[in-house]
């Protein structure tokens, strides 16, 4: 066979895919993520620290809320990331169902717990703000209830992904739930406009000028960008770990099959040789 014909056969498999699809290759993803993730982590930690310290010690108190307004520098980014994280989860789920990318399954499974954590942070800080301002830890307001539903959707996704012996079935079920749950995102966003809620309407919008003092807006921007970088870094780190864990399982299975072929019963002893 001539070298040109070998190239003609080999090229489709080895040829780099265009666009984002090329990162669906686990090896390529691991290489790219290991370069990006440390910088993203450092950038996120520094920006978040600046935003939180600025908000806690240097931003002015609100004339009505007093110092309780400082909770906003945590609550608002957490709320944005709870919704944005779910959107990412849904996009990964769509990629999983349409293109059957294993990496999309792993990314969705990793985004779930982080998104649930940020949603819990949003709900907890909302309660901590609500008690001194509204006089109640919780009210069944449309905004609060829809965010609580988002938290349950995250928990449902986490549970479904881990509920099956066959991980692929878990990923499929989780992906369907994630896509169905997307309907809750516009409900969260517009709940304060559609219903008469105790929760205040949006102060910052993409189209209009923010109705917030600039001295409060800057620390909020730092905190929001910082937390977004931290979220992305956590999702990348988790997905890297998941890719490596999948590779470990594959290697263990291959070793077990090889050991079983040579010495019957040796596969059981193999697991104990690998440090946990």
């Amino acid at each position, binding site marked *: 066979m001539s070298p040109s014909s070998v190239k003609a056969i080999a090229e489709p498999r080895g040829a780099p895919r265009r666009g984002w699809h090329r990162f669906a290759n686990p090896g390529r993803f691991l290489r790219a993520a290991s370069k990006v993730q440390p910088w993203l982590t450092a950038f996120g930690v520094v920006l978040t620290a600046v935003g939180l310290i600025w908000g*806690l010690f240097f931003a002015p108190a609100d004339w009505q809320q007093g*110092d309780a307004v400082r*909770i906003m520098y945590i609550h608002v980014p957490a709320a944005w990331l709870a919704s944005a994280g779910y959107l990412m989860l849904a996009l990964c789920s769509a990629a999983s169902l349409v293109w059957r990318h294993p990496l999309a399954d792993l990314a969705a499974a990793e985004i779930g717990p982080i998104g649930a954590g940020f949603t819990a942070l949003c709900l907890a*800080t909302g309660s901590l*703000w609500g008690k001194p301002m509204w006089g109640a830890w919780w009210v069944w307001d449309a905004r609060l209830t829809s965010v609580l539903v988002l938290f349950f959707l995250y928990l449902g996704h986490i549970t479904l992904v881990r509920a099956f012996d066959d991980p692929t079935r878990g990923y499929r079920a989780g992906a369907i739930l994630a896509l169905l749950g997307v309907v809750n995102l516009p409900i969260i966003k517009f709940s304060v406009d559609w219903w008469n809620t105790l929760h205040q309407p949006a102060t910052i919008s993409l189209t209009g000028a923010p109705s917030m003092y600039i001295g409060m807006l800057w620390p909020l921007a730092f905190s929001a960008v910082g937390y977004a970088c931290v979220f992305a870094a*956590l999702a990348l780190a*988790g997905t890297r770990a998941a890719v490596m864990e999948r590779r470990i399982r594959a290697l263990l299975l291959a070793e077990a099959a*090889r*050991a079983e072929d040579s010495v019957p019963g040796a596969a059981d002893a193999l697991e104990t040789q690998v440090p946990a």
Partner: protein
Amino acid sequence: MTHLPFIAASYALAVLVPAAFGLNAYQRLRRARRRLAALSGHGHKARSAGNP
């Protein structure tokens, strides 16, 4: 500072929640790297033993 306990609790959570996820991810990565290294060595030795 007014409402100090509520603010302190919020900021504590703001640090603890991402830190817990970060620590968990760091430990998983470390464990996975160690196991992969151990398995690669084991596989290499097994293959070498199979093909002298």
